[in-house]
């Protein structure tokens, strides 16, 4: 999949520019967006998902230019999957209902069809025992896996994940990362914001490194991790990897 950004900027009224003039063209299968907190990673991801509008600039995904008007964006959101850091499941619905709700109310499935799709996914990812529980009764890892199942149930070509494991206890992180990796292996295109450098390095082919709203470095993740090219990315990596075993 290919994304193109042309002079994308974003400023919120109460803050300085969060994204500054990002221009890039990248082919990817799995793209990791990394960088220090407040560097604009989540903002960039939300623009790609059509959840917020850039202040200026253009976004082109697989040759299709995003039109920044609500009607078009609703359609765009229906075609991509989005997973939040936490609490993205509807807390009044069970695991299964969370998966079937968009299928029924957005994509026009019948109840039976939607249940079948949900059961297939729940079965496959070992979530059957949790299907009828409310999010509050599930562990963080189970919640995130169901959120991912909901996002891919509609068969999107692109899955966006915003720090999907950073609210989790370490021992639950892997079950979520394994699931993302498995989906990637099936050919799903993935963009994720993450602090899991191991995953970015091993499971993602491309990297965006954001720093204070600028895209400082980009390209192959292998190259980035073996020889970072800017002092900022080198400093970031040494800081984040300091206590790695």
């Amino acid at each position, binding site marked *: 999949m290919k994304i193109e950004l042309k002079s994308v900027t974003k400023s919120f009224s109460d803050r300085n520019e969060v994204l500054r003039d990002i221009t890039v063209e990248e082919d990817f299968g799995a793209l990791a967006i990394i960088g220090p907190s407040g560097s604009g990673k989540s903002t960039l991801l939300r623009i790609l*998902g059509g*959840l917020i509008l850039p202040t200026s600039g253009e976004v082109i995904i697989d040759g299709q230019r995003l039109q920044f008007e609500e009607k078009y964006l*609703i*359609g765009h*959101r*229906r075609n991509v999957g*989005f997973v*939040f850091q*936490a*609490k*993205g*499941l*509807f*807390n*009044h619905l069970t695991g299964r209902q969370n998966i079937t*709700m*968009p299928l029924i*109310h*957005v994509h026009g499935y019948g109840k039976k069809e939607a249940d079948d799709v949900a059961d297939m996914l729940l079965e496959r990812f070992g979530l059957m025992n949790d299907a009828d529980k409310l999010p*509050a009764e599930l562990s963080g890892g189970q919640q995130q896996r169901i959120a991912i199942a*909901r996002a891919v149930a509609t068969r999107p070509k692109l899955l966006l994940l915003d720090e999907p494991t950073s609210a989790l206890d370490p021992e639950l992180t892997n079950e979520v990362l394994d699931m993302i990796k498995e989906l990637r292996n099936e050919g799903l295109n993935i963009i994720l914001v993450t602090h899991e450098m191991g995953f970015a390095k091993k499971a993602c082919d491309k990297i965006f490194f954001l720093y204070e709203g600028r895209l400082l470095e980009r390209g192959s993740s292998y190259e980035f991790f073996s020889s970072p090219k800017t002092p900022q990315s080198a400093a970031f990596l040494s800081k984040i990897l300091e206590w790695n075993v």
Partner: protein
Amino acid sequence: MDIRKLFVKKENEKAKPAQVIVNMVLALAAIYLFFMLSLKRLDMKLDFSLLWKFRIRYLQGYKTTVMLSIVSLILSLVIGFISAIGSRSNILPISYISRIYVQFIRGTPMIMQVYLFFYIVGTAWGISNRFLAGVLILSIFEGAYISEIFRGGIESIDGTQLEAAKAIGLEPGQTMRLVILPQIIKRTLPSLAGQFASIIKDSSLLSLISVIELTQTSREVSATNFAVFEVYMFLGLLYLTLTFPISMFTKYLEKRFSYENRT
């Protein structure tokens, strides 16, 4: 045996059934004695049998109060919901009208609104049926409080829930129907039940415009038999038969949902 154990419950523990019974009787007896003593000082004897012959009128009044309250509850839920949504609207005139409505109603006494709406607005628009006027006034009054309950409910919804609704491609109307409403109904149900008790009590003010509900019935009865004390004590009792079960129900709801909302 330690006598204290009978009256004092342990910190963080529920009172034992025996404690509840003994102390509840004690508390009621104390209140009863106080009133009896007051009556004795006034040298008065109560005679509730004076009320018996008005039983048909009481029954009528009771029915009217119940009907007034139920119809007003439904209408005020509608008004409150519209106003809560309106106050959050991006269309400024709608937002301001909703906010002014809530501020005005909550910031002024109901007695003044009753007169204002009935004699000015009601007369101007030809609403002469007193029951209908009563329902409208009460609904407009309670709607402002219910609006605030709903607004609080909507604001208590986690922002990520709304973002998730957007992300899966819901339209604004669907977000309201499929995400916001189901979540706030659960959360606001105890407060709404409590508000229903308020509606019942507040309906007594409609006696001012001669809606013949419980309070007006009592006023009329006391004007005939001059048994003011009996009439108003009985009136209090009648309201309690309506509000007490609701208050118990509210407590039950609060308990139930406080467990469900735990995360």
